């Protein structure tokens, strides 16, 4: 187990290193210059460049950047003058994280439940109804569903607030639903598939030969074995919710980190883009690492491999 965890940790560290390096050099290739402004004299522009350390050779900049990174310094935003990227993450990430967590947890529970129902009632009406829902959930991306339900429940019916964050809990309902929809749909489908794969396994026959009732067979033998491969999906699910937050925060006017990332892209705020990219990347790497470790813990066969 220890060896397994160690190997995962090494891969994760390497990934973060590659991530930071690639991000740095890609950002050097970015076209456009955030200091280019005809109203500002060239000498001032030079000073600004020097302030951000952009006048030094690229290799030197790289080492400075990596050094700062090790100390947790992600640089300073250009548009939010004087604010460090770390500050911005500290202020806005909790909002995104809270929304993401709400969306993910309710989506996981509902998705797994739907998947189990589908597999147990395969090719009968509960399966069909839920699969139609699941397929629709996958086929309708958040930028489609978001504006639609916002218009329906927020503008027309006025049941829920159209946007904003932090005043009432109702504000979280629509964004969390839109954000979780893809996850519910994906989970329903993969849980169904995982469980169908388990149902045909020989050890399920053994369990039945012991005289167990169908419900008991599901709970004691099928469930855990189908949840194991589902764990591997958790990483991509988290990534999906993260990406979804870019769109959802835009639609529902939520002051989260995703909204800032999109704004940084449109305003060419390079340090912020770099910092957020590395942060998001590292965040997902850590999440995947945790999922991997959990996976090894749940499935005793993984550890020996």
């Amino acid at each position, binding site marked *: 187990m220890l060896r397994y965890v160690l190997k995962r940790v090494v*891969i*994760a560290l*390497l*990934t*973060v290193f*590659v*991530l930071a390096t*690639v*991000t740095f050099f*890609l*950002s050097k*290739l*970015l*076209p456009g210059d955030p200091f280019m402004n005809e109203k500002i004299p060239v000498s001032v522009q030079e000073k600004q460049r020097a302030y951000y350390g952009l006048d030094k050779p690229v290799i030197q900049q790289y080492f400075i950047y990596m050094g700062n990174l090790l100390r947790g310094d992600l640089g300073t935003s250009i548009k939010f003058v004087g604010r460090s990227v770390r500050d911005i993450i500290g202020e806005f990430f909790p909002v995104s994280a809270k929304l993401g967590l709400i969306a993910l947890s309710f989506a996981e529970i509902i998705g797994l439940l739907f998947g189990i129902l589908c597999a147990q009632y395969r090719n009968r009406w509960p399966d069909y109804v839920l699969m139609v829902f699941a*397929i*629709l959930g*996958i*086929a*309708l*991306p958040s*930028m*489609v569903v978001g*504006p*639609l339900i916002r*218009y329906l429940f927020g*503008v027309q019916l006025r049941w829920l607030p159209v946007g904003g964050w932090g005043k009432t809990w109702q504000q979280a309902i629509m964004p969390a639903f839109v954000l979780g929809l893809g996850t519910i749909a994906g989970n329903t489908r993969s849980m169904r598939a995982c469980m*169908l*794969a388990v149902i*045909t396994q020989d050890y399920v026959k053994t369990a039945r030969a012991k005289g167990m009732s169908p419900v008991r067979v599901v709970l004691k033998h099928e469930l855990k074995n189908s949840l194991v491969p589902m764990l591997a999906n958790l990483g991509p699910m988290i*990534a999906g919710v*993260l*990406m979804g937050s*870019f*769109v959802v925060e*835009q*639609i529902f006017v939520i002051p989260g980190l995703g909204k800032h990332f*999109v704004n940084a*892209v*449109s305003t060419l705020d390079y340090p912020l*883009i770099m910092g957020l*990219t590395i942060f*998001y*990347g590292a965040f*997902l*790497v850590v999440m*995947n690492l945790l999922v991997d470790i959990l996976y090894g813990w749940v499935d005793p066969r993984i550890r020996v491999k």
Partner: protein
Amino acid sequence: MLNRNTCPDFTPISPDELTGEEMTRPETTYFKDVWRNLKKRKTALASLFVLALLVVMVLAGPMMNEYNYYSNDYAAANQAPSALHWFGTDTLGRDLWTRVWVGGRVSLLIAILATVIPYAIGMLIGGISGYFGGKVDMFIMRLIDVLMGIPSLIYDILLIMVLGSGSIATLVIAFTITGWLGSARTTRGLVLQLKEREFVMASVTLGASPIRIILRHLLPNTLGIIVVGMTMTIPSVIFAEAFLSFIGLGITPPNPSWGQLIKEASEVFKQYPYRFIIPCIFVGLTMLCFNLLGDGLRDALDPRLRS
């Protein structure tokens, strides 16, 4: 059973005369079998039909009226669907019928190119990795492990910014750089299983070159599963294109794509909901059909799920 009165015929019979009785079940090849299974799945067939229809419309649709997708006509701005403009017009008076189909052309082209190219590259790398094994495999797999950890959509954003946003080529290149990992891993797994099989052993002993074995024997046998994977990837590329358009990194106006149309329309959703809903329907329909087709293909290929 036996009629005691008539004496049975005990003359010996040669084995040749008997063989005719065997093999009464109709013979099926792999692909016939898959097709037979697919044919039974009505949803998959219907999806295939709808997709074919969409492709035809995307090609022929813009030619069905006299408008083009880029000419502004301020006199005709913001019209609702009518006999003249079947899907209405946008803020600049451009005909939406034409824009939807031209946009579909762009979206589908990106989706297909950004699926097929990365898959082809991934298959080749995966094939090499699985076939040679050892250090090559070790290196490629660790590389994939590391790269897999990087969230692809974030890198697509960076890459598109570097490459200059706006063209089909940029999007396809960005998706290719980040998209080959999954298919490489899948192919490697399949090749590892396949290379132990007799027909591969046979051609190795006959002295076929590794590249020939990979291209002629190994990769074709992974195609079934890979095609299913591709069918499932296309909708996610369509999604990614729409996503990038939504955050302002997609195809540059005046060129339309479905994502671009959705983004434009979402800003005036309250006033002109049909502008939003029409491209959404096509995006949803396309993603739905590819998903259903992929499901059907996967089930048709999976011997466990065959009835």
